[in-house]
């Protein structure tokens, strides 16, 4: 199909378009959503927040970059980014096992924190929410954050 379109029209419209974003259609998502992905407006998962904060602070407490943690714990960088930054993200079981091994906390408790198993100890999630609520996502780990982290590690570290 031949389409007649003048250069003047193209340039005038390019000017009007500016830097506007143009993506349309579900396929234009970057990349397409899994069928099982939660919609944007879905409820925020408390366990996602707690687990994400926990992983981030454990990493920062060790002075690790995401790349280094990924390498040392044998977890995909993309998955770590999702865990730390997306409260909707549901980590894979294997990832939680790997991180539990690396951080030396019980698998079972960390699976609960990650929301992958039904809570057997409600204290863990309650403490986790309290822990997450006390933190600010700042670049450096403050003494308060470190204290909060250590207190929470003590809770989930108890069998």
């Amino acid at each position, binding site marked *: 199909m031949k389409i007649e379109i003048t250069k003047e029209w193209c340039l005038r419209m390019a000017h009007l378009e500016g*830097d506007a974003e143009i993506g349309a259609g579900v396929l234009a998502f970057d990349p397409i959503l899994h069928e099982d992905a939660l919609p944007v407006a879905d409820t925020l998962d408390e366990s996602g927040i707690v687990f994400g904060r926990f992983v981030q602070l454990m990493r920062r407490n060790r002075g690790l970059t995401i790349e280094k943690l990924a390498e040392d714990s044998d977890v995909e960088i993309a998955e770590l980014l999702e865990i730390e930054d997306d409260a909707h993200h549901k980590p894979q079981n294997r990832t939680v096992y790997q991180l539990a091994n690396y951080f030396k906390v019980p698998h079972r408790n960390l699976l609960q924190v990650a929301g992958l198993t039904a809570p057997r100890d409600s204290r863990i999630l309650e403490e986790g929410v309290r822990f997450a609520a006390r933190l600010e996502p700042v670049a450096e780990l403050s003494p308060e954050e470190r204290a909060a982290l250590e207190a929470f590690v003590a809770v989930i570290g108890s069998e």
Partner: protein
Amino acid sequence: MTVTVSPIALFNVEQGISVDAELWDAITEKQLADWEAEWNMELLLALQRLNRAGVERKHWPQSRHWNWRKKTECLQKMLAYPCFSIMCDGMTQGMMIVDTPSKRCRIECQKGKNLVYIEYIENAPWNRKELLFDPPRYRGIGSILIFAAIMLSKEEGFKGRIGLHSLPQANNFYANSCGMTDLGSDPNYQGLHYFEMTEQQAVAFITKGGQL
């Protein structure tokens, strides 16, 4: 596959000049290869930049999980539909896939009539400022692809009527630059807003650029 190439122009932002480009009425293996090998890599690097710049994840492109394979499969399945792509500097700059037989208009004044429905339209990552390409490489891709959809609609006898579901960050483009009617969030399309263009709006859009 027979491909018809129409000459167009894009605006090179960095150099401030127009450059010759091509509008193809197809997506071929070349465009798919560019998408897989170039677009995806640039998008990942862009996400890394956003992350390192401290941009909150909620402001990143709508990503939840990475599944290029599935997207590739979906794209390939849709190549039976009419497709358009924009080429410049030997590289794919934008792509669009449309559906002509199965969708109908929703605006009251043209309800039930045929239209060209844009299933998918996307700009190359390096043309997207939101991915921290500053400046983006080329401007004009969206308008030219919408122009192509309108022309296809006319050729099909649909008088320029088109429709699409816009990604949230592109709502402004379709409402204001294109002058389409926003029919609101569509729960059947992951809450994306459905936009539709009437015959009159198509004329206004084309006239805006000085061509009828």
